[in-house]
């Protein structure tokens, strides 16, 4: 009877899910985690939000709307297997350029800011897009990483709103400098 009980308990265990993209939840969870697990993605997304908040209206809402839409263009290129040169370099450069924009308080015209952000969005989208075909549930994966990207932007926007106060303005610019340094570390192969 004891052996039967032990066998019974072993059989009660569910299928192993570690490091596997199991079904819908696995696809969504993997997508949600994908941008968060890469520091280069995280800092660049934060920089988009920070810069948007720093530039004020309409950039504060326009950049987080433009980014995911343009990011899909990169994602589509990744899915279709159309090569884009130096994707990782582009992602590292996005952190450097966007971080410096915040650190140096650069205020270009809105179309120029949108173009800069859109250019880098293609590199980030491409990196996510190449992961998509391997996902258990591509739609859940894409929804996960788009939401995750958007939430990182909003985190950047929330921090960037500190720029309304003089002390906060210094903090936000320091944050931009830190992001640029992380980008330099990635570009130099230190991270």
């Amino acid at each position, binding site marked *: 009877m004891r052996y039967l009980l032990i066998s019974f308990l072993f*059989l009660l265990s569910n299928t192993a899910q570690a490091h596997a993209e199991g*079904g819908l939840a696995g696809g969504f969870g993997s997508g949600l985690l994908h941008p968060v697990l890469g520091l280069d993605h995280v800092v660049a997304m934060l920089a988009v939000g920070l810069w948007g908040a720093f530039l004020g209206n309409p950039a504060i809402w326009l950049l987080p709307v433009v980014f995911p839409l343009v990011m*899909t263009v990169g*994602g589509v290129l990744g*899915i*279709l*297997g159309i090569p884009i040169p130096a994707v990782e370099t582009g992602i590292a450069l996005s952190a450097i350029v966007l971080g410096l924009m915040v650190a140096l308080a650069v205020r270009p015209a809105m179309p120029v800011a949108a173009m800069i952000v859109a250019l880098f969005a293609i590199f980030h989208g491409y990196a996510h897009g190449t992961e998509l075909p391997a996902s258990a549930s591509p739609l859940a994966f894409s*929804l996960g990483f788009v939401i995750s990207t958007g939430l990182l932007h909003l985190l950047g926007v929330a921090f960037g709103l500190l720029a309304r106060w003089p002390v906060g303005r210094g903090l936000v610019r320091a944050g931009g400098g830190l992001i640029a340094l992380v980008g330099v570390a990635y570009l130099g192969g230190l991270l």
Partner: protein
Amino acid sequence: MWRVAILLLALPTSAWAHSPIEGLGDFFNGILHPVFVPAHLLLVFALGLLIGQQGVQANLNAIWAYLLGVAMGAVIAGAGPVLPGPMALLELAVLVTAMGIALLVVLAVRLPSAFLMLLGLSGGVLLGLDSVQAELQGTARHVALFGSAVALYLLLLYPMALAERFDVHPWLRVGVRIIGSWIAASALLVLALLLAPAA
């Protein structure tokens, strides 16, 4: 012998999206169906956000058109055979419609009531048609389709109420547009993935 039977009963099994879930009745299987099909969720959420953004009171006809569309689609799906080819086309159509409606949410332009009705009707028909579960037959299929239709209606109410409640402050209105951009982006990526082998 009964010991072997108990051991076999304890064997783990997996639940799969877009197919009946073991242990649930047909009606509840139908209720859960749209929740487990992300493409349906995208379309329902995009449509709900759009109707809420445009004003629920002024666009009640769009909700009725959506309900009518879901009912029409479910009746047609329940009566006919489930063929893999048309079902794949339906999935594409659901995603294209979701993306188009989500882009309208992003643009946030005032739309004619008749156009919104047309979107509600076509979105409803597509969802109703795509709600059929190939594994079910006869009465079970019809009961599940009825459950799906109920769920599709209830699911529309949440984003619609959200978008209307958010129509009081510029920041909140921007939030609705951002969610629209997420839906459009996800739908476009999966469309690319579906079309990739032919490209």
